[in-house]
C-alpha cells in the first residue's frame, strides 16, 4: 500500500508501523467519575467496519509522524491522510 503523507507525499506502507483504530486519540479523563468504565471501553471496545476505517499509522522509518489514515478495509483504498496531531486538536485535545 501507499500512504500519501501530508508532509512527505506518497510513501510505501512498509515505512509505517500500524497501531489501530484512531479512536485511541479520544483517551478518557483519568481522574473523573466513571473513569474505569470509560477506560474499559477505550482499551477494549472497537468497531470492526467493513468499509471506511480511521486508523493510526506511525511513520517509524520516516519523519516519526503519527497519521490518521482513512482506509477502506474491503478494498484497501485510502481516501484520506491527516496528521494525527491535527486530528487530536480538532477533537479538543490540547495539553
Amino acid at each position, binding site marked *: 500500500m501507499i500512504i500519501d503523507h501530508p508532509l512527505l507525499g506518497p510513501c510505501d506502507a512498509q515505512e509505517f508501523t500500524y497501531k489501530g483504530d484512531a479512536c*485511541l*486519540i479520544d*483517551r*478518557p479523563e483519568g481522574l473523573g467519575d466513571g473513569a474505569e468504565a470509560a477506560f*474499559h471501553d477505550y482499551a*477494549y471496545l472497537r468497531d470492526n467496519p467493513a468499509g471506511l476505517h480511521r486508523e493510526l499509522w506511525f511513520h*517509524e522509518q520516516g519523519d516519526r509522524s503519527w497519521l490518521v489514515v482513512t482506509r477502506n478495509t474491503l478494498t484497501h483504498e485510502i481516501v484520506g491522510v491527516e496528521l494525527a496531531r491535527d486530528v487530536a486538536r480538532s477533537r479538543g485535545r490540547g*495539553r
Partner: protein
Amino acid sequence: MRLKTGGQIDRSTALRFQFDGRDYCGHPGDTLASALMANGVRLMGRSFKYHRPRGVLSAGSEEPNALVMLRSGGRCEPNSRATVAELFDGLQARSQNAWPGLKFDALAINDRLSNFLTAGFYYKTFMWPAAFWEKLYEPMIRRAAGLGAITTAPDPDAYDKGFLHCDLLVIGAGPAGLMAALTAARAGARVILADEDFRMGGRLNAESYGIDDIAGADWAAQAVAELASLPNIRLMSRTTVIGAFDHGIYGAVERVADHLPTPPEGKPRQILWRIYSKRAILCAGALERPIAFANNDRPGILSAGALRAYANRWAVSPAESVAVFTNNDDGHRTAADLVARGVKLAALIDTRADAPHCPGVELLAGAQVTDTSGRLGLRAITVRLANGQARKLKVGALGVSGGWNPNLALTCHQRARPLWDDAIAAFVPGPDLPSGMAVAGAATGAFSTHAALAGGAGMAMQALADLGMTGTAPDLPRAEDTPTRITPFWHVAGNKRAWLDLQNDVTVKDVKLAHQEGFRAVEHLKRYTTLGMATDQGKTSNMGGLAVMAELTGQSIAQTGTTIFRPPYTPVALGTLAGRFTGREFRPTRLTPSHHWAVEQGAEFVEVGQWLRAQYFPRAGETHWRESVDREVLATRGSVGVCDVTTLGKIDVQGRDGAAFLNRIYCNGFAKLAVGRVRYGVMLREDGIAFDDGTAARLAEDHFVVTTTTANAVPVYRHMEFARQCLWPDMDVQLISTTEAWAQYAIAGPNSRKLLQKIVDAEFDISNDAFPFMACAEITVCKGCPARLFRISFSGELAYELAVPARYGDALIRRIMAEGAEFDITPYGTEALGVMRIEKGHAAGSELNGQTTALNLGLGRMVSTRKDSIGAVLSRREGLNMPDAPHLVGLRPLNPQSRIPAGAHLLEIGAQMVAANDQGYLSSACYSPCLQSYIALGFVKDGQKRLGHKLRALSPLTGEDVEVEIVSPHFIDPQGERLRA
C-alpha cells in the same frame, strides 16, 4: 523428432545437455522440453500419486507434468518445468519421483492399487491407530507421493531485491502487450513491459499466420526492436509478474541468470522486483484446457496449442504420426499447421457433429477419443465414431483442445471474481479489478490477433488519458480476426480413469466421489481431491474439475464458481524471496562502541535483538562459562567491574512541559524531580499491565534523559510519540532517540568512585555528599571530553553509568581499563549483569513479560492515585488486584546446589501436578556465587505474605523437581547500604 526446417532456433550452434545421465544435443532457442522432444524423448517424469509415466502437456509455465530437477549440487532446483527451462550448454536435468528409474519405477505399483488410492484415501485408510500417523503413515506417504527433493547444500548464488517505478506496466508481450507498450511508449510514458518468456511475442512466436505481410514472429521482433530504441521503456523478458498488490504495486521475478550455467561475476541469479505503477494492462493471453478421457495422461498427449507451438516455434514433434482431438475451431488450426509443417496427421477428431471441414485433413466429426494405449508413451488411440463404431488409430502423439481460458489470475489477486461467458465457454475477468488495472487481448476472452492488437492499443490510449498524457492511436496492422466457435465438452463418459489434474492425479472418478461424499463446494472439492494444488495451481485442470462438478450437481458452471487465485502466479524460490537477507545478513547487526575492544579481550558474544553484546569474558584456564561469570560477579562486588550498557534505549526529552509529560507517561510521580536527580520509573500500558521500566534523569529544568530496556527502546519511543502527538498535542515537549549517540558504561563495585575520580575532570566533585545515589550531571572526563554521569545501580553495588558521545566509546573503555588496573578492574558481560540483578531482585525482561502489573512486581505503591497517568486507571481494576494476585518473590532451593530451572512452575509439596494447583512460576534463575547457592525470582500467589513457605519447583519439560523456599527477592543488601555508600 526435429522437423527439417523452420523454428526460432539457431541450428548452427549445438548445445550439449544431459537428462538422467544421458547426453543429448539441442540448439539456442530451445527449452529443455523442446530439446528432449527433438531427441525423441517423450517420457519425462512420473506422476505424483500413481507414478504413471508422464511427458509434456504444455509449452509454457502452466505445465503440470514435465517437472525435473535442474542442475546439481547447491544449485539443484527441484520441480522445474522443462517447458520453460531455457537450454544452455552443459545443462543437467534429472527426472524426479521415480525409483530406481524413469522407465521402471517400483512405486508404479500404486497405479495397480488405484482403487484404494482415490480422493480422501489418506484420511480413510491411515486413520487408526492415531500414533501411527506421525511415525509410520506420513513418512511413508511422503516418500511415495512426492515431487523433487531439495538440496541441503547452501545455494552459492546471490538473489536481489529491487524497486521500479513506471507510468504503465504492461504484463505480457504478446500482440496485445506489444501494441499497448508501443502506443504508450511512443507517447512518452514511462513503460515497463514484462514477459515471462525469454523471447517476447507470446503466441505470435507459436503461430503460422502473419501480421500485415510478414510472419507474426517477425512482426513481434520488429515491435521489440522499436521499443528497445525508445529511452522511456524498460523491456523485461524472463520476468514473471507474480502478484497484483494494493495501490498499483506488482511483484515480479526476473530470472537474470537461470539460462546460464552460472551467473556472471557479480550478477544475481534472480531479482525480486517491486514495481510501483500508476496504470497496468494485463495482457497475459489464454491457457488451453484439456478434455478428460480414459488414459489421457500418457506421454505424447499434449495440449493442441502446445503441439502447434512445438512445431512452429521449435520445429519439433513428439512423434511422426499425430492426431488432434478438439471441441472447437482452434483445434483445426493445429491440424492445419501440423500438416503444413510436414507432420503426418492421422485424423482430426471433433466432438461436434457439425464441425467445419478442414482442408487436407481427415475429419472425424461427432467422434470422441475413448481410450489410449502405450506403456511408456502413446502408441494408439481408440476413437468412437459418430455412428458408434470404434476405430483404432496408431499415433505417437495426440493434441487435445477443450477450449481456451483467459489467463485472468492477476485480476483476482485483490477481490475480483471472474464471470462466466457462454460465448467462449470460459471465465472472463470480472469487475472490481485491482485499482489501475485494465485487461486486453485474449486475457479478456477476445481470442483473435486483431482483437489483441486493438485491445492493447485501446487500453493504452485509455491509460494515457487517465495519466493526463496524449497519445496517438496507432494504425492497426492487418491480422486474422477469426471468431471463437466452441461447443463445451469436458469429459468422455466411461468407466476407466480419465485425468482432470495431471499434477495431482485427480480423475473424473475422484470428483464424482467428492460429490457423493458431500464435498461439492469448489473450495471443498479442491481440498478433498487436491485438484488444482501444488506447483501449477490448476492452471490447466481447475476448469475441467469445476465443469464435472457442475454436471453432477446440475448447477451451471457460473453458479459453481471458481476457487480463489492467489499470488504467486508461478512458483517462486524461497531464495528469491529471501534475497540478500540470509545468514549473517538476515538482519542488521548492531555493535556496541566497545565491541572491537571486547573482541580483543576474547569475549563471547550474545545476540540481544539486533545487538551483539559481550556475554562474558573468559580467561585462560577457564573451561566453563560459569567459571568466568562467577569470577566477574565476585570481582565486581569485591572491587570494581565495567559493563557496556549502550544498548539500553535512551530518549532525549526536552521542552517546558517535559516534567508534566513524563508524569503522565510513568505511573509514578515525576513532576517534582529536581534538576540533577535521577528517578526509577515504571511505564504501564493503558490496560494496566507493566510495559517497561528505566530511569529518567533531569539534566535541566526542561531537559530529561529517559532510559528504556534494550528490547523496548523502539516500542517505548513509539509509545511516547503517540502520547505526545495524539493525546497531548499542545504540550511543549520534543523527543528524540539518542540510543546510538551515546556510549554508556556501568562502573560498579566498592571501588567504582575511586576509579571514576581518576577519569572525571577535577572540577567535578563526585564525592558521596556532592554526588549521592540517584544524582546525575553533565560533566567532562579525560580533560575536556563531554560526558554524562548517572549514579544509578542495577547490580546493587555502589555504581555509576558514564556516557560519552559514541565516537569516544572505544577510547573510554580503554581508559577505564587502564585506570582501573590498580583496582583489578574486571569487565563483565550480560551473564554477570543478569546474575547481579537477580541477586539484587531487580526486574528485567523476564519479569516485565507483558502479563505482570506493578502490583505483581512489588511496585504497586508506585502507581500514583493523585494524578492521571497512562494505565493507572485500569491497573486498579478488580481482576488485577485479587487477594491471591501473584507477587515477585525470591526462591532458594533447600539444597543450595540444586539447580532451579527458569520457567518451572510452583506447587505445594505433595500436591498433584495439575494446573488447578499451580502456585506460580519462576521467571529468572541463576547460580549466585555470592550466596554459593542457586537462586531464582518468580511470581507466587500472594507471595509477599508467604515468605518462608516451602514449595516444589517443577519443570515437566526438563524433568527437574526441586524443593524451594520463598524468600525476599532482595538476596543481597536488602537495605540498599552498598549503593548509597
